[in-house]
């Protein structure tokens, strides 16, 4: 089916990007392994949808497709959570930098010309 070809092609494309990022040291080893396995899993599920049925019956979920959707949602939420935490950390760092610079470059009061 066309959708399978498209999804596999897309997954291969993403794996290629992941490898590039890892080579450029933009991605740490644990994340490289995680994303590579993740997209390989996507390919497996797309090519052999029946594999999800095994997981589904094992987990007690009705259909294999449902398992894929549940898992995707859980992963998405987790990633959003991680990004959220990360942004809070970045915000704090920006405030600390801004504060440090403001204090280092404090301007001494000028003599009030009205006095």
């Amino acid at each position, binding site marked *: 089916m066309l959708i399978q070809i498209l999804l596999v092609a897309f997954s291969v494309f993403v794996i290629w990007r992941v490898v590039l990022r890892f080579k450029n040291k933009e991605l740490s080893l644990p994340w490289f392994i995680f994303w590579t396995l993740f997209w390989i899993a996507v390919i497996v599920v797309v090519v052999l949808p029946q594999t999800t049925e095994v997981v589904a019956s094992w987990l007690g979920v009705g259909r294999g497709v449902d398992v894929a959707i549940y898992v995707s949602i859980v992963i998405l939420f987790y990633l959003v959570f991680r990004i959220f935490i990360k942004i809070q950390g970045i915000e704090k760092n*920006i*405030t600390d930098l*801004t504060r440090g610079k*403001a204090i280092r470059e*404090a301007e001494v009061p000028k003599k009030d010309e*009205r006095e």
Partner: protein
Amino acid sequence: MKIVAVIPAYNEEKNIERVVRELRPHVSEVVLVDDGSSDATGERANRAGAWVLTHAINRGQGAALATGMKFAVDNLNADIIINYDADGQHSSEEIDAIVKPIMIGRADVVLGSRFLNNNSNVPFFRKIVLKAGIIFSRITSGLKITDTHNGFRAFTGEAAKKIRITQDRMAHASEILDEIGRNNLRYVEVPVTIRYTKESMEKGQSSLNSVRIVWEYFSGKLFK
């Protein structure tokens, strides 16, 4: 006693000179934190005789206050630190009253309250929102006070060192109360007058923003 007033300001060039000049006779130093203003707030405050610390980018009122208080403690060795609004809502004559409980050793923190007397012309809807804020803060901080979101405060230098403001935006008002409770600081409330002018209502916090502040408070708490 070295009294340092800390004023967080964002685009307040209109009133800032008057506010700084009004304050100066009542305090030893005035520190203005220009929170990334695009107008001449910093320059004018400096000309009027204030120390000026400039946030290169806007970080919010809580962050600006924290910057000013850190500077007042670390660099100016302040004995007493006052928080004061840049928009001219507060009355400089009330400085003496707000500092007094610290002077006589009765408190570590003094909080201004617009509800202890009836001098402030608080608009009706604003009153409802503020009262809701008071109930909210009583629950979260356990402090029994009458006005939780008043920018007019005084701290001893020691108290200011203990209070950690991590809420960069508006939720810092609740956070300061939490910190007072957490550090077991002695606090009193003193009646102050807030002047609600048309201008300050337009420029200041919209009452509807309170929802957002509650959200910031909780998300900051959960993900510290």
